[in-house]
């Protein structure tokens, strides 16, 4: 209910939803890399699968030879051959 209200206020004020609702933002660069912003930490890492915690679930990146090129409190850049990105809530 509160979330719905916040969404409507954000839309009324034309604020970006990812900022106002604290949502993750995923940018995919071809099949070469994925930038995940506003994450909540690394849950599992394997060269073919990376699972990252986000506010209301997890984001799983599947691929080959996956590496975390950069990792900070909010951003994560995954490099490798990306096959799929899945949001699990």
């Amino acid at each position, binding site marked *: 209910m509160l979330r719905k209200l916040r969404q409507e206020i954000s839309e009324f004020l034309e604020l970006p939803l990812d900022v106002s609702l604290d949502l993750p933002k995923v940018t995919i660069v071809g099949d070469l890399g994925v*930038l995940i912003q506003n994450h909540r930490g690394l849950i*599992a*890492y394997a060269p073919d699968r990376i699972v990252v915690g986000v506010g209301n679930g997890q984001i799983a990146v599947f691929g080959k030879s996956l590496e*975390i*090129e*950069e*990792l900070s409190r909010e951003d994560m850049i995954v490099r490798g051959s990306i096959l799929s990105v899945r949001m699990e809530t």
Partner: protein
Amino acid sequence: MARNRIKEYLLGYVRVEVRGKNPERLINLCLASGFPVWDYSSESGAVFFSTTLAKYKGIRRLARKARCVPHVVRRVGLPFAIAKVRKRPYFLLAALLVLAWLLYLSGSVWSIKVIGCETVDPGRIVRAAASAGLAPGARKSGISASSVETAIAVQVPELSWVYVRFHGTMAVVEVVEKSRPDSPGPGDVVASQDGVVESVLVLSGVPTVSPGQTVKRGDILIAGSPSGPMPGARGSVIAMTSYDVRKEIPLRQSLASRTGRRIEMTVLRWRGVELTLWGRSNAFEWYEVEDYPRWKAFEGTEYTLSVFTRVLYELNWEEVRLSPEEALLGFERKVKASIESQLPSDAKLVDLSCKLEAVSEDVVLGRATLCVLQDIAEVRPWNRSENGGR
């Protein structure tokens, strides 16, 4: 979130190997503590990541909390490089000595190159330069380019221009030789060809012909006077001259045409030696070659290194029988091309007419008549007895 790789190198960073049941927990603890982590990967049961040198001690404390064992596998950056060099002072000293020696040697002249000599012996120029201090082994700072130029100009009077410059450790002496026009001694201006005079320009002497007059080869056009400030005749006489060209043209001819098949290869050439870098070798019996330059290094020196694409076009020879008219057209084209390359630059082709004089089964006789507007003036020097007689 762009990484500053230069800053990482300057501050130094370590590549850490972590073994344990839950390395992801260590990573999350690092993130929560604000420790930077990058290049996270895994290999044979262990995970690897990079972090700054300053934060590594803090990571050891967090690793105990996450029940992981960290281990530094590689140290990268300026602090480690400095520490390595400080342990080897003689290596640093030797490197500095080599650098100083190179700097000293680069301040000397190692070789001298002379450009522009055609008739003058380059050895004379090198010796003249040596007398002004420019010689192999001399320090560049002690050489005055202008005094070397003056010394060369004075000692080699056949030169009209001298320029000295340094190209690294090589001194380049560029020269231009004096050019004297081949002017025969004083005499009369005579006709070098038969023709009809169109115009006469007299620089000295007395004209003996006028426009419209027909002259024969050897006729005096401008008579010179032995006395006066400018003895002898000078000038130009433009005349209409005509030439006759006769040639037998075979009617059966072999003509080459490109089949459309081609082979491309990339070739490296150095000092006349060619090496095919890649591409198929030649598989055609008859072909035309075209080279397209791609890259050159050390251009202008004898060590020019060039890479070019060589294209071989396959040719097919065909026996054709020309009609007399086609043979005449081909003859006209050949005469035009030949005339354009043979006529002097100031001559102008006014008229060209071609015709067949005789036709047989296999050969025709073509005749071309050309009218050319050209300068027919030529100085014929007086010989001693003639000069004395005039």
